[in-house]
Structures are given as C-alpha cells and as structure tokens.
C-alpha cells in the first residue's frame, strides 16, 4: 500500500488518467473501481440503488469509506506548482498524502471537484443569480463580473428572466437549471453531475444538453444519468454499476 503511495506521489500518469477511484462501501453493498481520463466524460449508469450517488459522494469527499483509493492526478505536462500549493492527490481513505506526513483527510472544498447533487439544495436566502454567483466567488470571481457571468449563464440555460427570484418561487425544472448553472459556474477541473436532466421538459432537455456538451467538452466529468439520450449526447464512455 505504502509502495503504491510512493508510486503515485509523483502524480503524473503517462496514460492520461485524471481521476481514479477504487473503493467499497460494504454497508451499502457498493463496490466500485473506475478511472476517468483527462477531459473525458464518463457516464455512470445502473439501476436505482446501485451506488451511483454513493460513488459521486466518495469522489467529492462527502463519504470516506474505510478502504478506498481516490486519486486526482495533475496533468502530465504540469509546470511545477508554486511552493505552498498542495498537490491534489487523494489516496487511501480519501486522504491527501504529502511526503513525510501522516495522511490527512482532504475535505470536499479542497478537492477542486464540484458536485451537482441529486437533490441540489439551492440556497434559500439567495436569488437564482446569487446562487450561481456563489459558485463563481469560490473561484475568486467577485462583484460585477460575477453578477454578469451568473446572468449570462442563466441566460444560456433559458432562465435569465428568473435571475432575481428566490428558489422557493421557482418550478422544479427551473430549480434544476439554476443548480446546473451553480455547479458549472466556477469552471472546475472536475465536475460530477447527478441526474442533471431529470426535471427538464422535452423542449429544454436537448438545449441544456447542447450547452452541457459545450461546457464539458474538455473538462473531466462523471455524469450519472438514466436517460439514454443524455448519455449518448454527452458521454465518451459508459460505466455500468450493477446491483
């Protein structure tokens, strides 16, 4: 085990793998092993309860299985990081390894991964635009620029006119779109999406799918979906979980 840590401590994978996970959550009957290449969108499919949301939770750091290996690799041609910046390396037990140190659990907000949850929980005290700007601010974009980009993103999703509404007065599909915008706003390195299209209507679904295709083009992504069209349109590869 320790050996492996050393191996991956260098962090650059010649095979272009960006994200790799191997873990089991026996109490949920879930056991997964997968790898996603840089820029690739991997569709994660399977029946209800097969462990798709659980997998995303592990990747995002919300769930830390007893035995797990989650690795996020820097690009092969990465310039050396400025001193002080941590390598984004998650290992056994979802932990960050730095040479000579005891592994420490890396909390979700330090993983350079954003997750669109199956129940996305929009912040009730912020407007739709405020929710989207929240994602932007975490990436350091603030003020007028954040507002502008939030508005633009909501526009691309067809709900610019709702940007000043609170989540409580949005319809199910409108909320789903705000959540998509919020998750993608900050341009994250890795995106995990849990059934982003489930609440969309027949007309919008293809539009949103088109936008997602654009946004995910050269981004590493794991997409959970029950919709064959969505998988077809967005994913480079499908990984099926079975019960």
């Amino acid at each position: 085990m320790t050996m492996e840590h050393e191996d991956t401590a260098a962090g650059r994978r010649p095979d272009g793998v960006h994200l790799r996970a191997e873990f089991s959550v026996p109490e949920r009957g879930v056991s997964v092993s997968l790898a996603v290449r840089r820029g690739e969108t991997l569709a994660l499919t399977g029946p209800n309860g097969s462990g798709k949301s659980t997998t995303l939770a592990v990747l995002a750091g919300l769930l830390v299985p007893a035995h797990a290996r989650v690795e996020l690799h820097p690009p092969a041609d990465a310039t050396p990081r400025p001193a002080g910046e941590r390598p984004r390396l998650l290992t056994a037990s979802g932990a960050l390894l730095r040479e000579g140190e005891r592994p420490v659990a890396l909390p979700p907000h330090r993983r350079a991964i954003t997750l669109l949850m199956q129940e996305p929980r929009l912040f009730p005290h912020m407007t739709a635009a405020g929710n989207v700007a929240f994602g932007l601010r975490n990436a350091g974009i603030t003020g007028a620029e954040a507002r502008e980009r939030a508005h633009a993103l909501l526009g691309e999703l067809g709900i610019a006119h709702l940007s000043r509404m609170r989540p409580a007065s949005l319809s199910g599909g409108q909320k789903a779109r705000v959540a998509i915008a919020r998750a993608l706003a900050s341009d994250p390195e890795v995106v995990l999406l849990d059934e982003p299209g489930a609440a969309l209507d027949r007309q919008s679904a293809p539009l949103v799918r088109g936008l997602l295709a654009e946004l995910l083009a050269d981004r590493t992504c794991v997409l959970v979906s029950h919709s064959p069209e969505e998988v077809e349109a967005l994913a480079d590869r499908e990984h099926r979980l079975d019960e």
Partner: protein
Amino acid sequence: MIPGPPSAPTHIRSRARTRSREHRPGVPSALLPLAALGALVILVPVAGLAARVPWGEFLALITREDSLTALRLSAQTAAAAAAICVLLGVPLGMLLARRSFPGHRVLRALVLLPVVLPPVVGGLALLATFGRTGLLATPMEATGIDIAFTTTAVICAQTFVSLPFAVMSVEGAVRTHGTDYETAAAVLGAGPWRTFATVTLPLLAPAIASAAVLAFARALGEFGATLTFAGSLAGTTRTLPLEIYLARETDPDAAAAISMLLVAIALLVVVTVYSLPQSRRSHDKGRQAARDHGA
C-alpha cells in the same frame, strides 16, 4: 475484576474503522476559541463554587433532613411546572409560529415578560393577581380556591417564570422546521389531529425535550417569585434555592453543599433527558442529512 483491553483513543480507532465516515460540516476552527471562552464563562464560576464546598462533610450536609425535605419538594414542583410548561408551551409556541393574527407581534413580545421581570417583581405580579386582594380575588373566593402559602403556589410561580423558555424554544423549532411534512400529510388525507400526533409531535420531540429541560432547570432554580408569592415553609413551600438562601446566613458550607446538590440533580436530569432516544432525533437528522448527500 479482569481488566478489559485498554480503550483506544479516538484517532486510532478511526484508523481501524470498517464503516465509512461521512463528511459533516462543522464549525470554522477560528470560532473554537470563542466557543471555549463561552464554555469557560459558565464553567469557571461553577468550579469556583465547587471549590468552596467542604467535600469532606458533603454527604453529611446534603443528607440533613432540611436538605432532603427541600430536595423532595423541589423535584416535585419543578417536574410539575415543567410538565405544565410543555402542555401549554407547545400549543402556544406552535400558535405563535404558524398563525398570524392581529397583535401577533405584541403577544410574542409579551410572552417574554416573565424573563424581563426580576423574579421578585414576578412574585408581586402573581400576588397582585391571585393574592387575597388581587385581580382575581373575588372569583377565587367564590370558588373557594385559596392557594396562598401552598405547594400549588410554588408551582404557579415556577410555571410563570419558566413558561417563556418553553414557548420560545418550541416556537423556534416549529419555525425552523417549516410545514413541509405537514403539507405532505394533508395531501395524503390526514386531518389536523392525525398530522399533529403522527408528524408534528414526533418531529418536534427533540425541541420538546429541550423545552422541558429548560423549563425544569429554570423552575428548579426559581427563588424570588417563589419566596414572594408562596412563602417559605419547610416541606410545603421551601424549595432548595430557598433552603440555600437560608442556610447561607448561618452555615455557608451547607449552602455551598446544597448548591452542589442542585447542580447534581440538574446534571442528572439533563443528561438523562438528552439521552432518551426521541430527544436525539434531530441530532441524527443532522447526521442523516450528511448521509443523504451520499445517497
């Protein structure tokens, strides 16, 4: 006794864990010093008090008949007051949280008055109401009710000062809780009573437990209103705080010891109530919410 294996410190145990651990949002670490300071503000004076207790004679002091009589009376009256506070405080708290009516805001503020009134003034207010020359003297005489200098008067005084805390804590919980689950029950055909009994009450259980504990604690410590309204007679109206106050005049050691007895009962009751399964539910809920996101 055969010694068991030494219990491992937490961080080692967690290394060897076989179940997954959930990420639980916590408290920004910068706030921890403030939290610690808050705990110290409360704990240090209690330690100061404990340092004054002649622990050698502690048992002798607290098992004196006076102390035991007062203890019994205090436990009974505070429990009765807490029960009444829950019985009246849950409906009133729900009403304030869920209905709007003219004067709502003022009523909500008025409910806090017993907290603002110094307890002695609270006692005077009770006298001005239920006393022999009080507001309700005529109807009370007509019905032959005379609570002056009785244990009932003690419970009245304790209820008066404790009720606001029960109401506030229920109201806060009902508000925070929202009405989502009640709405879900209604569209499934459940009437207000069934909804109240099977949805609202169980979900509020932790808040009700908190309300009961707060009311009990406040009633247990009640001094001024009891003294002013009910008097101080051993076995009938002299609760532990009154006993402490008296003992202090002649025997500060005994006063300190009985204070510790009060502290001990409070700890016992609070720890017990919070260990009941239903009063931990909201705690679990917090955990489950975290889990939820892994679901």
